[in-house]
């Protein structure tokens, strides 16, 4: 993925889709991540693997400001260190028991994580962006980027579409042949415009998947 101007920063999800006190999963280039927001609103991104038994932390839940693993309830604080082991409530867990945190940033209405080498965050007009939606697309991210008009070498861009109002598109490569497309609109957009953009996203998805030979049609089998 080198060659992109955004260095190692990847747009995981819309900020609006990560509510305080919740944890979600995300996958970047086949690497599974747990994304959570604490009660104070700060986002954290860790590898999606409990250091205890390898359980996916994204299946867990937030308790007392810490992320609790669903398997044995081990809890991990903001820096990834284990703070509580329910089976040994009096034990102060050693600092070596630690989930692996990634660098995280929030801007332009998106949660970003630094997955590879550091680099600058993508430069986007610092206007207020309102979330439209995210779509999973079973097609290569580069193909979707080209289709919506994101310049080569970028994962996010303000689109130059011949419609009124600006659109921010950001692409997350999930794995080979699958990506997430995040869409946001300039804050001046009305509800009708947001619906139009959401429909447009579905259209982009359908076309990209048709090119990739992927068809997901409900109702065709009993």
């Amino acid at each position, binding site marked *: 993925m080198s060659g992109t101007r955004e260095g190692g920063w990847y747009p995981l*999800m*819309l900020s609006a*889709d990560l*509510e305080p006190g*919740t944890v*979600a*999963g*995300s*996958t970047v280039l086949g690497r599974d991540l747990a994304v959570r927001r604490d009660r104070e609103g700060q986002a954290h991104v860790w590898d999606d693997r409990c250091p205890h038994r390898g359980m996916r932390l*994204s*299946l867990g*839940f937030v308790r007392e400001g810490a992320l609790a693993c*669903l398997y044995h309830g081990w809890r991990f604080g903001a820096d990834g260190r284990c703070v509580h082991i329910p089976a040994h409530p009096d034990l102060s867990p050693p600092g070596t028991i630690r989930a692996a945190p990634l660098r995280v940033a929030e801007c332009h209405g998106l949660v970003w994580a630094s997955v590879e080498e550091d680099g600058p965050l993508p430069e986007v007009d610092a206007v207020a962006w309102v979330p*439209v*939606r*995210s779509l*999973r697309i079973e097609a290569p991210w580069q193909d979707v980027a080209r289709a919506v008009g994101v310049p080569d070498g970028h994962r996010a861009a303000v689109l130059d579409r011949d419609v009124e109002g600006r659109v921010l598109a950001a692409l997350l490569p999930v794995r080979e042949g699958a990506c*997430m497309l995040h869409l946001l609109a300039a804050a001046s957009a009305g*509800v009708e415009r*947001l*619906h139009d953009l*959401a429909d447009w996203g*579905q259209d982009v998805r359908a076309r990209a998947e048709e090119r990739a030979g992927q*068809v*997901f*049609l*409900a*109702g*065709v*089998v*009993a």
Partner: protein
Amino acid sequence: MSELVLHDDELDEDCYRVRLFLSLLGLEARRVAVDVVPGGEQDSPGFRAVSPAGLLPVLRIDGQMVCGAGGALLALAHGRPEWLPEARAAFARVAHWLQFAGGPLRATLLMRRACLFGGVGDEQSARRRAAVGALRIMEDHLAHRRLEGGTWFVGDGPTVADIALFPAAALCRDWGEEYSAYPALRRWVRAVRGLPGFVTMPGIPDYG
């Protein structure tokens, strides 16, 4: 209301639909366990005498047997306008999603059963594609609903449509679909989980 009786399989998501709705309504039913896996009891003469087509669950309500989740949910929602709106347009929207839950969305249930009990991988089958397509219809609808500030499938509060649709989304990990591909569904699943009286079934985590 005379005693409610539910012929029920703990692992079956259709039965769970009705158990969940009963719990949200604060109702208790006497449960009669039906041994589907491995017993195959749904095809026994005894059960077929209760449910001629072998449909689960069977709800006995006001002395009447109702077979299948869709019918049982409607029977329970009857006379409760907060769960089943009376105005024709809103009723029609709920009916639309109940039909969807009993129709195209069945692909998700079949996928889950194949993965849990069938013993064979079903990676790229037509059935999986139809199941993903059905989940996407829900995801797309909820993404649009959110743009106008809506949380639920129809109207301003949960309806019986949300209950009919819920298990397919909550259990999709059992056949390999991750919530990360469905952010709108994930938000809605959280909203359903937050309803007073919410209960889980095997496969839906209980955070305790």
